[in-house]
């Protein structure tokens, strides 16, 4: 079926119509497909008579999670739902859509449901829908872009149905999870949706501005299926009648919608009125803004100026990062990312390839970790096609891939993956013959890459070209060739340009100075995507200055924000009399790290921990116990200690030694409990007393805890539960742990846990993080 002719009229609400006919809230409305097919057929038929050319089968919530316990299978409910709609459509040209709504459970990182499990739930629906004979699939009322992506992939990979996707935006122009209209459009169009739009949430008057924005962000046909206004809290009635709704729908059409229908509160009368109002109306012209971008749900990085790609998530030449990869220390990698974000990077390059690391497993794991706490879009950096696909699959938004080159085999292997997941791609101007020595030859390769991308339906704005920085101390004439190539690719081909800047200075003294000089010249030549270390002030200052000179930084606002009120020369370090102990007690992270580095000149790592770090932490701990200090201060001190530990780890990693660790503690929030800040506080404090804390996360099954203890020889387990409803899970986990052949000690804590309760379980009680340290000492030392 095609979506691009004139208008296409969808149906209106099913749920609120069923409620009007006596359905109670709660329960499984899809069971009606089997118990009352006549009512559903009648409703569908009324919509067709009103002018609907697509009717949504009553399958919105027919996923295995939502229908659990109803006595019917997904396939039964979906088959019946689709067949009812087909009966209603007999003898008409109306098409039947398999309707796919949200799963009713939040995906990670908000909830506990994994992306892979969500995909499986949707795939089951999609397969059943196609088998039952649906003409198309619609994914609707989504508020989480990640869930929408799981559903869209499930439909596209398991069926050949055309698919429309609509999400619900509130009056701020975002979904409940913060997803923007632009991020939705770029992600879902890239993934191959046939039409996209919005449904539910507001009336047509409220959604019209959102429709207008969406029309600018996509080449696809745009859908508007809003509510009949807002419901009244007293009687539940919706605020707009059919005529008012139909008139307001004209505003959505003017804003660019061509596929229209109604959601909650609408009925066949609303669709009839809308169909009538549309007679004689013409679809509005779409004005698509083809500025390139990549994005996460909450943040779109528009490529209409210089955008800094942070290079720090990369093990090359970094012992500490290599160690983190080998130890699966994702917290460290997240720390690196957070620093880059705070330093002003716009995009983060992610490279986790290292001998001994399974990149295919590691890349998606790192991506999931990063997108739980960083809002920047990512550039996946690998030459391993399998790792790239695994990474792109779990990435939430539109990513970039670094990289392909001019080699036909490489292009043929990677571009289909780039296309499938709708990513942007970096093309290196080299091929089998190596890096061409002239700018003209590099531009030739760039053209070849561009042509190959276009042939794979990757749009021009998603093709980024890296003209390659060579080391100036080795090939001096190449610096200018690179700049010439950048200029040609930027001005003649009109493409985004990427360069790894710091290569230029390899082997020379005062590298930051040379890097800065090269960066400024490259930016002037048309470099738009420098790959740099954003923590280096010289480079970020240069970018800020360039943005002023190029006019990108209008009224110099960002430049002024960056520099105004700051001393031009870095102030001398705070207090010369500050000791390491003071710095820890007062929670001064940077000072503590600096002083620890100095101290390591005098004493070894272990004695620094035992003689300086732990006593300082104990002092804060004692103040906390006596009420002179409070938990935030205890945590600040712990984090200052963390920065000292980081210095120690780096120092040991450089020497190739093994890290200082005082014993392993596994820690988890029990199954069913999703509140984990308490557990994280305990983790922070324990880690900074030198214990190796294995964080099993939140909502952890007893079996998972037992398995971790058995596999890693753990002698102490900390369990947290916040609510009375999850105490049984704490009991069960403790029971299973204590029944192990060589049982570990267990400590428990959390808002509803008491000392008596802990004793009844045979566990230690830790009222707070400080007491957890006391228990750890008792058990492990």
């Amino acid at each position: 079926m095609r979506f691009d002719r004139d208008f296409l009229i969808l149906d209106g609400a099913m749920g609120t119509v069923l409620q009007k006919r006596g359905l109670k809230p709660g329960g499984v409305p899809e069971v009606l497909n089997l118990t009352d097919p006549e009512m559903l057929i009648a409703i569908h038929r009324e919509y067709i008579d009103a002018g609907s050319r697509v009717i949504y089968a009553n399958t919105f919530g027919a996923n295995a999670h939502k229908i659990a316990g109803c006595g019917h299978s997904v396939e039964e409910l979906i088959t019946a739902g689709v067949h009812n709609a087909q009966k209603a459509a007999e003898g008409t040209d109306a098409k039947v859509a398999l309707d796919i709504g949200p799963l009713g459970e939040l995906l990670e990182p908000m909830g506990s449901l994994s992306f892979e499990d969500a995909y499986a739930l949707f795939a089951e629906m999609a397969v059943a829908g196609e088998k039952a004979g649906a003409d198309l699939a619609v994914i609707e009322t989504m508020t989480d872009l990640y869930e929408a992506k799981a559903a869209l992939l499930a439909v596209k990979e398991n069926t050949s149905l055309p698919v429309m996707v609509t999400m619900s935006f509130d009056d701020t122009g975002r979904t409940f999870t913060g997803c923007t209209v632009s991020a939705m459009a770029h992600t879902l169009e890239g993934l191959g949706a046939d039409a996209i739009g919005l449904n539910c949430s507001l009336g047509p008057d409220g959604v019209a501005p959102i429709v207008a924005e969406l029309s600018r962000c996509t080449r696809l046909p745009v859908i508007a299926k809003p509510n009949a206004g807002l419901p009244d809290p007293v009687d539940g009635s919706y605020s707009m009648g059919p005529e008012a709704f139909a008139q307001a729908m004209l505003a959505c059409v003017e804003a660019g919608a061509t596929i229209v229908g109604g959601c909650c509160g609408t009925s066949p009368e609303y669709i009839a009125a809308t169909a009538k109002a549309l007679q004689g109306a013409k679809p509005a012209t779409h004005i698509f803004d083809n500025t390139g971008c990549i994005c996460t749900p909450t943040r779109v990085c528009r490529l209409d100026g210089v955008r800094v790609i942070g290079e720090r998530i990369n093990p090359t030449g970094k012992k500490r990062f290599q160690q983190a990869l080998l130890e699966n220390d994702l917290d460290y990698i997240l720390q690196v990312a957070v620093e880059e974000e705070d330093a002003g990077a716009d995009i983060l390059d992610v490279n986790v390839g290292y001998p001994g690391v399974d990149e295919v497993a590691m890349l998606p794991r790192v991506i999931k970790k990063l997108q739980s706490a960083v809002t920047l879009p990512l550039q996946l950096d690998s030459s391993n096609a399998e790792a790239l696909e695994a990474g792109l699959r779990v990435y939430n938004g539109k990513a970039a891939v670094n990289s392909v080159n001019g080699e036909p085999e490489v292009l043929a292997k990677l571009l289909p993956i780039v296309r499938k997941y709708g990513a942007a791609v970096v093309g290196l101007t080299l091929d089998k013959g190596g890096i061409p020595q002239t700018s003209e030859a590099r531009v030739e390769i760039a053209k070849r890459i561009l042509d190959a991308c276009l042939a794979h339906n990757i749009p021009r704005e998603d093709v980024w070209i890296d003209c390659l920085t060579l080391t100036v101390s080795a090939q001096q004439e190449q610096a200018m060739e690179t700049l010439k190539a950048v200029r040609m690719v930027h001005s003649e081909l009109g493409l985004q340009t990427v360069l790894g800047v710091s290569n230029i200075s390899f082997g020379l003294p005062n590298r930051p100075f040379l890097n800065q000089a090269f960066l400024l010249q490259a930016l002037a030549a048309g470099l738009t995507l420098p790959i740099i270390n954003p923590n280096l002030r010289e480079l970020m200052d240069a970018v800020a200055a360039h943005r002023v000179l190029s006019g990108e930084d209008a009224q110099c606002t960002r430049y002024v924000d960056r520099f105004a009120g700051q001393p031009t020369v870095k102030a001398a370090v705070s207090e010369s009399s500050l000791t390491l102990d003071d710095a820890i007690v007062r929670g001064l992270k940077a000072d503590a790290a600096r002083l620890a580095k100095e101290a390591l000149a005098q004493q070894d790592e272990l004695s620094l921990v035992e003689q300086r770090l732990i006593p300082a932490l104990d002092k804060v701990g004692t103040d906390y116990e006596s009420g002179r200090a409070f938990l935030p201060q205890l945590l600040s001190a712990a984090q200052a200690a963390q920065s000292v530990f980081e210095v120690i780890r780096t120092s040991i990693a450089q020497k190739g030694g093994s890290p200082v660790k005082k014993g392993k503690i596994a820690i988890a929030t029990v199954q069913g409990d999703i509140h984990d800040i308490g557990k994280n506080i305990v983790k922070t404090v324990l880690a900074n007393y030198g214990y190796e804390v294995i964080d099993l996360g939140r909502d952890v099954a007893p079996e998972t805890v037992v398995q971790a203890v058995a596999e890693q020889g753990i002698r102490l387990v900390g369990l947290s539960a916040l609510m009375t409803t999850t105490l049984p899970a704490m009991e069960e986990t403790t029971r299973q742990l204590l029944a192990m052949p060589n049982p570990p000690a267990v400590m428990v804590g959390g808002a509803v846990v008491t000392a008596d309760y802990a004793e009844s379980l045979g566990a230690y009680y830790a009222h707070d993080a400080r007491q957890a340290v006391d228990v750890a000492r008792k058990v492990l030392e």
Partner: protein
Amino acid sequence: MDISEVLRYAGVAPDADESLVQRTEQITQELCNAISPRWVWRVFPSIDLPGQTAQTMLTDCHSVCILVCTLGAAFDARLRAMQARDMSDALLLNAAGSALVEEGCDAAQREIAARFPQAHLTDRFSPGYGDLPLSVQPMLCDLTDAQRRLGVHVTDTFLLNPVKTVTAVIGLSDRPQQARIRGCAYCSLRESCSLRKGGKRCAL
């Protein structure tokens, strides 16, 4: 917003180190600039609630209002991002979130009162307190359509997600309502409450 409430949730005494209080103020201010509470409420002639406390509270009420108020997933995302940066700040943000969602409930309650100028409202009463079990959360969220209208989910263990979400029941009556259900006797945390152990009480 009332900083003393935020400090109370964070377990920090009002006379704590000035820099800590200032940090709390700053984090609270940034939160209020970024996130506003959202709520839905619906009024029913009556609803079936288990337990004695709810019944006591709703004696001589002609209708019952269910309120759901949340800071949304944006708060959870902010808290995750903050935990990756600084646990101490995250603790303060968590406390500020608790105070902010309560403010949202206050504002919603004023909205309800304005809609029923003749009625007298009871206290706000939430599952998990007294003998009103958490297991009523799915019903309260279904009746208000909170998943679709606010993005609020209830887990299998009856926890609300996003984390700063409050459900409450408020009675509407023709007669002035005395505070019937305040104090430690009605609080499910009375056994483990650290304030109570120290011989103190919270404001509720």
